[in-house]
């Protein structure tokens, strides 16, 4: 292990991984595996909190078991008994949020894959894993991917778990110093702003109508996410907006 970690520091993510190892995550009481990843939702819907998932390989050292190609089924020779101990990767054991689980991704082509869970008798989901988005603006080491399961399109952010743990601690530190900052309200649908019912300086109550956006001939009311005062209105009636555009700021 020691030899491995020194060679690792020469790689771009090595510094982070190394830091993560030097200071164990509180509460967890164990060192996150440098190959672990944290997968979080990009646009988490308001109200429906979906926690990030931390995925790690099993912590037990896995002996490299020689795998015999095709187990003789395709080779024409008689069946060869599997190597002992049983190949631990046959259906992959991983740690999901610290709990051991059996999950395996069988990639069929560049996009289609099958997610098999719970061993041979478990569930199988057909998934589409779209090619990663070009790394624009995203922090280094962060990969964005679109995954489709059962018709649901999910945009995910994937980063090394060790990095995520570091970042999490840094954020918590900031919050302790902290102040409840202004809330930025962003567009969740594209369209045209039909009307704006508030102006800078107005007090607003949670649930109060802020503005109306028309998309596909339907008028959608945007309501205040919390009580506060309008600090700034960034759009005016008639403006065309895209998803993610800043609409207004509530302080």
């Amino acid at each position, binding site marked *: 292990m020691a030899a491995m970690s020194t060679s690792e520091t020469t790689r771009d993510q090595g510094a982070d991984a190394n830091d993560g190892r030097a200071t164990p995550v509180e509460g967890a009481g164990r060192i996150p*595996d440098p190959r672990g990843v944290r*997968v979080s939702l990009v646009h988490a819907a308001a109200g429906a909190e979906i926690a990030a998932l931390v995925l790690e390989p099993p912590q037990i050292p896995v002996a490299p078991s020689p795998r015999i190609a095709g187990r003789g089924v395709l080779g024409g020779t008689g069946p060869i008994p599997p190597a002992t101990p049983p190949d631990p990767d046959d259906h992959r054991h991983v740690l999901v949020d610290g709990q051991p689980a059996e999950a395996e991704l069988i990639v069929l082509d560049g996009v289609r894959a099958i*997610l098999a869970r719970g061993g*041979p008798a478990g569930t199988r989901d057909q998934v*589409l894993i779209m090619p990663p988005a070009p790394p624009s603006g995203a922090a280094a080491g962060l990969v964005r991917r679109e995954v489709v399961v*059962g*018709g649901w*399109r999910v945009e995910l952010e994937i980063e090394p778990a060790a990095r995520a743990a570091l970042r999490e601690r840094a954020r918590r530190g900031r919050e302790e110093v902290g102040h409840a900052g202004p809330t930025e309200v962003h567009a969740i*649908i*594209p369209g045209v702003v039909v009307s704006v019912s508030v102006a800078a300086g107005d007090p607003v109550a949670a649930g109060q109508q802020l503005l109306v956006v028309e998309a596909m001939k339907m008028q959608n009311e945007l309501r205040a996410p919390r009580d506060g005062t309008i600090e700034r209105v960034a759009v005016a009636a008639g403006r065309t907006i895209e998803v993610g555009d800043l609409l207004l700021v509530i302080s």
Partner: protein
Amino acid sequence: MATSRSDPALAPSLRKDDAGARPFRRVLVANRGEIAVRLIRACHELGMEAVAVYSDADAAAAHVRLADRAVRLGPAAPTESYLRIDAIVQAALDTGAQAIHPGYGFLAERAAFARAVEDAGLVFVGPPSAAIDALGDKLHARRTAAAVGVAAVPGTLEPAPLDRPDQVAGIVAEAERIGFPLLVKAAAGGGGRGMRRVAAAADLPAALVSGSREAASAFGDGSVYLEREISPARHIEVQLLGDVEGRVVAIGERDCSLQRRHQKLVEEAPAPGLTVEERVHLHEMAVRVASAAGLRNAATAEFLRAPDGTFYFLEVNTRLQVEHGVTELVTGLDIVREQLLLAAGRPLSPDALDAAARAATPFGHAIEVRISAEDPGRDFAPTPGRVTRWWMPSGPGVRVDTALEAGDRVPAEYDNLIAKVMVHAGDRGAAIDRLRRALDEVEVAGIQTTLPFHRFVARDTSFRAADLSTGWVGERWDGPADHRRAVEAAQLAAGLAAMDAAVAAGGVTAAPRPATATSATTSHGAGSADGRWHRSGLEAAQDRWPR
């Protein structure tokens, strides 16, 4: 403008069949999307040329590519393109089209458009402008039905006066008489636009104003009226055809009860659970209203069926319906073809009369789901954008009407329907099985669609039991819960992919992966620094499947 040099109609006919079967030489299709493609297909099957019109957002769209000619109308905004009556009529005159088919939406139910087409000496493929006036205006239609003894949903027969604040008290009193909850509806409406549900008198003034504003934006007419909400109700509609001699027939009904925000999501033919007598009675009522209003060509009479089995007349749509395909599947009739023949002044065809004769006993069962660019996990909010992957089902008994392919953009300016998946089978249970199978084949990425909702419907026991009502979606569908399950699976899949990618990139080799993953990946030599995953995995998959 039109160059007649290459016009096949003027060349000696090489067609074996009677050239007289062709109702027109050239037809302009005044629409976009899947319905424009559907109409162009019918034109081509009849040996006619099709002229497309398009906005800047659709310059490379499928309907433009399929058409024999195409005319640009203007910028993307509907008011500057597909709603421009003058530009569309001029395009037809310039290209030598003899008829204009409006499809559904846009100008399909504007009497002014039909009149402009008629005045230009062209044929409007649809009911005459007078019938659109009488039936397309929901208030006119309610009065027409009342006159021929067909019961309409209780409510007002005149538009609510909104310009006079002093009359608000009068409207509220009227509303109390009708009873709450009630619906504010747009007289010129359709698709739930301008419609508001009002539970108490206090909410009525606000609903009238916002409903009227939306109606004015969508239809250019802000008139609204009040109607009692019938709940739970089934939404059942009757497909009608009429010829110039005034003969009107019903060729079957459809059940469109599964709706969200008064937008239909799933339609089927025939309506499950009706007796033959009920069907005959329903068809007869629809024919009575349509005949009284002077219907020609194709239209649909909509009814609500209350829990006690009473049918209430709702409105007549004087156009081809989105869901006409399910009726085509169970009757074997091509409704668009019939429309074009009827528009040319032909009497109802033997096929149409045949279909009418067995309207109450159709062939098998058909179901259509509307795949829309909407997020069923966020209250069906629109999700326009670029489609990066697009794979539609096929196989026995499956019909898909769409105009989309991978790489296309779903514009925010237009309707969000992107594909209609229809299935046909011997009975309703077999049709549901086929629907489930077909929807499992669909692959769409880039935008969220209503596919998860439809997959849920195809597996739901109460849908299979035909326990349908217009409130079904709100009662049965828990979008966020279904979404959460999918997100969890997606997180797992993305995480496993990323871990494999890290190994493939040779990033970390501590605790070496067992041979399968590493050997398969490194042999490709594609482990790139950005962690892209190039392993094909087919070998591994083949290895695992037999177990």
